[in-house]
């Protein structure tokens, strides 16, 4: 009795085997986790928004979009950096696309709008993307809103002490934009600098100022030992250009959005004065840390030929840090989002992760990151100006390690409340 196998039987058999192989994980696997991504792909922040999705996509590909035995479906939406548009998109993600978690948004006003929306939800979680307004978590926090990235005030930690103690400068001129983000940054600088004993002269200019010549003339004549510049985008470029043209030669200290590749790659006289400039922030181009080097390496391999930057942007890194928080918590609870995500949110709150920069991250009682901040200097490396980290302030919390009640009593940062409070002698 010879056994003959016909072609049909072989085909049927192999098809059956293949079917079984395909079907078996499908039985083992539960329904996918739906992760909504919200960033800004329109308007002035679009390049940062694109980069944030690049980094998220790269990290999801790396784990084969699977965590805790469940697949992750990533559903992308985009806003134009306006609060009510971000809110409309978030509502669509939650109610129409039925996502479990939102990763986003990118900018401050959007973050505050989504925090308020998250408060009205049950069994859903919003984890910040890269928005950096302090009030999102500092005042009226929402139990459903988590932030593994640091805020604009935290980004200046360590800078004030460095200027006073290591650079031995007793008085500075602060030239800053007259709106929320620079207020937060100036506040962060002043808290440390004035407590150490430094004196500050402020020179405010409205958003969109192009002519700083009068202010720069005053600054150059003043007794200030250094200039702290906290302007963003084109304002920053205009200030730096005019400062260079005026022959300004005081040391420069910059806010987090000044020491940035968009500024450094623009041509003009400002590049001369920017080399050697000191700044603070959550990332740098060059950080002496194996985690960061490996992350930059992967990023370049994946994206350099597809429109990526030389090194990941601040938005890309912040989104990735927050994604790490989500993935860590999902692993902890083995992909279980039941019981209104209670266990998942507990795991988020207790998460201890390492950001792509190598910084350790944990959350405080407001679900806000306590993490490392880098002190950076701009140096010429490989024939181009790069932001190089030379020190890090470890475990910086949202109140810059002053007691919370005392910090909150200072009130919200503003033009009239720049945070310059001398130490009680």
């Amino acid at each position, binding site marked *: 009795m010879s056994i003959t196998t016909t072609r049909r039987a072989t085909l049927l058999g192999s098809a059956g085997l293949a079917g079984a192989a395909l079907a078996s994980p499908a039985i083992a696997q539960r329904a996918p986790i739906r992760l909504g991504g919200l960033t800004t*792909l*329109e308007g002035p922040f679009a390049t940062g928004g*694109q980069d944030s999705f690049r980094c998220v996509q790269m990290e999801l590909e790396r784990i084969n979009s699977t965590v805790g035995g469940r697949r992750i479906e990533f559903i*992308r*939406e*985009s806003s*134009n*950096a*306006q*609060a*009510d*548009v971000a*809110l*409309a998109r978030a*509502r*669509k993600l939650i*109610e*129409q696309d*039925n996502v479990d978690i939102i990763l986003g948004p990118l900018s*401050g*006003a959007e973050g*505050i*709008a989504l925090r*308020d*929306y998250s408060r*009205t939800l049950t069994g859903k979680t919003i984890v910040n993307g890269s928005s950096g*307004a302090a*009030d999102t978590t500092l*005042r*009226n926090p929402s139990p459903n809103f988590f932030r593994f990235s640091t805020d604009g005030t935290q980004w200046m930690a360590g800078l004030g002490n460095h200027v006073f103690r290591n650079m031995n400068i007793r008085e500075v001129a602060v030239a800053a934009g*007259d*709106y*929320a*983000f620079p*207020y937060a940054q100036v506040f962060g600088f002043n808290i440390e600098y004035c407590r150490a004993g430094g004196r500050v002269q402020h020179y405010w200019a*409205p*958003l969109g100022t192009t002519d700083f010549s009068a202010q720069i003339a005053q600054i150059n004549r003043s007794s200030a030992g250094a200039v702290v510049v906290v302007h963003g985008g084109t304002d920053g470029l205009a200030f730096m250009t005019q400062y260079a043209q005026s022959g300004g030669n005081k040391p420069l200290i910059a806010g987090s959005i000044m020491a940035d590749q968009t500024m450094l790659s623009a041509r003009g006289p400002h590049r001369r004065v920017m080399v050697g400039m000191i700044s603070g922030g959550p990332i740098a181009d060059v950080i002496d840390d194996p985690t960061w080097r490996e992350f930059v390496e992967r990023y370049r391999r994946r994206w350099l030929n597809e429109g990526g930057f030389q090194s990941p942007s601040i938005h890309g890194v912040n989104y990735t840090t927050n994604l790490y928080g989500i993935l860590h918590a999902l692993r902890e609870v083995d992909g279980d989002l039941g019981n209104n995500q209670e266990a998942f949110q507990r795991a988020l709150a207790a998460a201890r992760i390492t950001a792509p920069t190598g910084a350790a991250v944990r959350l405080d009682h407001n679900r806000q990151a306590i993490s490392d901040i880098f002190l950076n200097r701009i140096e010429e490396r490989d024939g181009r100006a790069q932001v190089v980290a030379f020190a890090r302030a470890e475990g910086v919390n949202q109140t810059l390690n002053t007691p919370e009640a005392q910090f909150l009593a200072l009130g*919200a940062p*503003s*033009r009239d409340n720049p945070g310059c409070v001398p130490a009680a002698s």
Partner: protein
Amino acid sequence: MRRGLAIAAALGLLALPWLLHAVLPANQAGFWMGNILGRALVFGIIAMSLTFLATYGGFVSLAQMMIAGVAGYTLAIFVEGAVPRIVGGAGYALAIPLGVLAATLMGLLVGAIAVRTRDIYLLMITLALSMGVFRFVETNITWFNGYEGIRNVVGPSLWGLDFRNPWVFYHVTLGTAVLLFAAVMYLVRSPFGLVLQGIRDNPRRVSALGYNVALHRIAAFGVAGFIAGCGGVLATIYNIGISPGTIGLGATVNVLIMAVIGGLGHPVGAFLGSLIFTVFDTFAATIYDRDRFNTLIGLVFLVIVLASPDGVLGVGARLRRLLTRRAADK
């Protein structure tokens, strides 16, 4: 006949939520009711304030979203519970009328400033006013909390019904829209409305008849300000607060787009346009590529405007004319 149609439409809108819940899963029905229809009605009201001015007065104003924002900011400044607290202390029963009043006054002011301009110059001056107010609220911290705006305007509870509930929100919005729509239809048949239409057709003749053209124009802007104010209050509650972006250039132009694609021939066009806009704004990214969804939105609007210069309303009118011509030919 037309009145019957209007009443039937209103009843249909009233019954729509139940219909949605019958055919869609629960959460999606809620989404369609609150965030598609509700949002379309809110912005339809603001677009109607523009349609009213354009249709009956011939004034295309780009200040309507800004005026709605004035109502929203006033509400947010005075109402208790908003974050940050600017003035606070007022309940919604007081803050909402204050907001609408502020918008009406702003409407009168815009009308007074723009009283001598027409056509493109009117468009430019109203746009300049909007952008001026936008920059002002964006940079002023003391009153408007600058770039972050004022949040947490959650809306009132009506007889134990919470405004955050999509059913309540939808029906309150629908009621407001119907009332304002009826008011506009009544107003344009009144002597004031007739004079307004006279100004649109021939201002000189109207003033020769002894009417004060300037005063009528300013009053029309005041009425439009009142309508936009009602929309602005609802929009602020819908968005749980207000930020400068709400009255930015994008939002300003969106209102114009809604009015134009709906059709400037009749106030109902504002709601049609607003519904089409909302549906495409929400689903373009799903239908088409997520990085390029604005292309689809732009194309749809272009097609509508090219196929029918007077918007969606014009399509209906064209079809009717075509059919009557067919009937006459036979």
